[in-house]
């Protein structure tokens, strides 16, 4: 074996040993590279129950949202012909629309809340995840979750506009204003500013049927389960505005629900619950696992960068090797200079 090769092998061996040492420490821990522990619902988590079977598609919530959050009406070019700028026709949430009612249509659309030949409404806005992806990916803490209410807020003064919250959100909620030279991220903050004054979020406040219902998440979940337990068609007293509030409710027959409370477990759970007559995936509410992807990604980072032990150990090994090898070839050190003598 020639000396060069021997030296190479020795170098390679120490490099491998260094790497192994760097990786071994964290790997020995249980569930290395596994997802980190799931997060739990904040103690006084507030949320919303949206009952698609109660929604009549009046879009009062869309208008109220625009007024409460100072957002302009939208007129997509495709709908300009029959709109002429008179009213808001936002098709989906956007940089100017934080909340929107969308419609599901199939075939002859003869019956509401039926999958075939039917139609149904669905509301789209932030679901205020228990373990939000947007917070996990944000490099500058512009997205925050209130430790008490669990509301996910956005701080444009911190935001650098990298749009990874838009990219990573499983519900495609945060929206960047691409048409503005100084655009910002727009997302529903559950009318945080109104709640601070003791008011309801604008959409729940104006909803005439109680399809958007404000309340504590735990109470809303119980209410959703109560509705699911009823026989379809049975008369039920639906509350309006706030669950347990002082407003009068209204009586209506119970809808033919899908046997699933959407938002309870999706993506590690959210603070918004959906009851729908049409399977949720048809309404644009994606099928998601019970864990948050943020737990997967953070589990990986926490394993690799735990206490910066692995990177520092690796750096230590690299410094030792680089020092020895750069010295061994001193003549060809990259810092070697032709005019070293005269610079002294």
């Amino acid at each position, binding site marked *: 074996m020639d000396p060069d090769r021997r030296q190479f092998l020795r170098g390679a061996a120490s490099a491998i040993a260094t790497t192994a040492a760097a990786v071994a420490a964290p790997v020995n821990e249980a569930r290395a590279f596994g997802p980190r522990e799931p997060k739990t619902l904040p103690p006084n988590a507030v949320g919303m129950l949206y009952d698609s079977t109660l929604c009549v598609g009046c879009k009062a919530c869309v208008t109220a949202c625009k007024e409460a959050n100072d957002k302009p009406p939208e007129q997509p070019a495709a709908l300009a012909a029959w709109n002429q700028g008179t009213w808001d026709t936002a098709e989906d949430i956007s940089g100017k629309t934080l909340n929107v009612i969308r419609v599901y249509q199939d075939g002859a659309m003869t019956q509401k809340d039926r999958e075939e030949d039917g139609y149904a409404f669905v509301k789209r806005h932030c679901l205020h995840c228990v373990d939000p992806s947007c917070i996990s990916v944000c490099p500058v803490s512009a997205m925050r979750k209130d430790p008490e209410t669990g509301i996910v807020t956005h701080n444009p003064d911190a935001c650098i506009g990298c749009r990874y919250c838009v990219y990573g959100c499983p519900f495609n909620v945060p929206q960047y204003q*691409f048409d503005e030279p100084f655009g910002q991220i727009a997302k529903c903050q559950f009318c945080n500013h109104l709640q601070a004054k003791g008011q309801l979020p604008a959409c729940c406040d104006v909803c005439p049927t109680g399809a958007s219902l404000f309340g504590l998440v735990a109470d809303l979940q119980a209410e959703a389960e109560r509705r699911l337990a009823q026989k379809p068609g049975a008369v039920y007293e639906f509350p309006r505005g706030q669950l347990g509030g002082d407003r009068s409710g209204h009586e209506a027959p119970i809808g033919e629900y899908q046997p699933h409370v959407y938002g309870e477990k999706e993506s590690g759970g959210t603070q918004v619950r959906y009851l729908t007559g049409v399977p949720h995936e048809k309404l644009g509410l994606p099928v998601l696992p019970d864990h948050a992807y943020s737990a997967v*990604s953070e589990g990986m980072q926490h394993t690799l960068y735990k206490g910066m032990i692995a990177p520092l150990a690796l750096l230590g090994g690299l410094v030792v090797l680089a020092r020895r090898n750069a010295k061994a070839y001193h003549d060809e*050190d*990259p810092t070697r200079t032709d005019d070293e003598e005269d*610079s002294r």
Partner: protein
Amino acid sequence: MNAANLESRIPNPALENHQPLGGRIVTKPFMILGVLVLIGGYFILRRFLFGMGDVSHMSNGFPIGTWVVLDVVIGTAFGCGGFAMALLVYILNRNAYHPLIRPALLGGVFGYTLAGLAVMIDLGRYWNAFNLLLPWYAQTNSVIFEVALCVMAYVTVLWIEFWPAFLERMPPAFKKRFHLHKMQIFLRRYMYVFIALGVLLPTMHQSSLGSVLLIMGSKLSPLWYTTWLPLLFLISALAMGYGVVMLESTLVQRAFKLPSEAALLTRLSRVGAGLLTLFLVVRIGDLLARGQLGLAFAFDRYSILFLIETTLFAAPVLILASKRRCANTRLRFLATISLLAAGSLYRMNGYLLAIDPGNGWIYFPSAPELLITVGVVGLEIMLYLIFIKTLPVLLLPGRIAEAAGRPS
């Protein structure tokens, strides 16, 4: 070819050294690149005046477009030449490859610096970019935070590693005037620290560029979504680093009629082939372990992308498997192109093409969006040409350096 032969190929530093290539700066290719840069500059101006929507097809379904994917994710992998060569020369002690290091480093300097420029074009609220460095805004769970800080640190390290090339070129009187010789001595003594950092930092952020995709979950096809993403991104980045060195060396040698470094490149190409083999083992093994290999043969959009990508990864391995083919310049060049295309497509698939955000969103870049990317890459090549002609980057035999002034 054995190591002893390689050693004999090493030029004697007393006779040969890093030298400026010389020659005219403003040549025809340089002018063409300049026009591309001006066109890109025009659209960059529009982006800042009228917003990103004016020039780009990015949307809230595809908020990440070619500026991030081509200029940053793929661009920094192309900038991994310095990383890959430093690992080979200084960590694995293969000094035979030393002549390739400084040009590789220069490629890294521009690949990474201009990725930073592309990020500033892409950031929607660029005036807040400094928040990344303010500790009270730091969000250490964020993979992007790790990438951002790590890339910033590495750009600094790259310029420090390259700095001796400037120092060598400065007149001694100038150096004396500003006490730069002290800096020279300092750098000479402690360069090994920067070399070590120059290996550690890309290891961190190139793997993190894979971890970034872990948040995508079901938006990313299971053919790409795996917890092995960081390792796959790291291996392919290293392979692309060697690929870039081979590409650059071959092109520069052709363009400026320099003596061939074929012996070195033959050896280097086998290192690249080894890494590609490792990549394929992990990639296919992971698909088998997760039971998703069947998706590869569904012959839908994702399956076809996967098959093209895997073919591009496997082709260089097959070409370079035989020593005879390995020594053939043309085949080796073909393998290099295939390697770089494979790594690029893998990144493009993971970040864009294999993503389905739902709701019928689709993305195809607009012409101005692509022209900005072309402008940034053009600027990179222009600066590279200026630098190799004016600074001691390439290891030249004495006679060629004397022939400076020859039009290229």
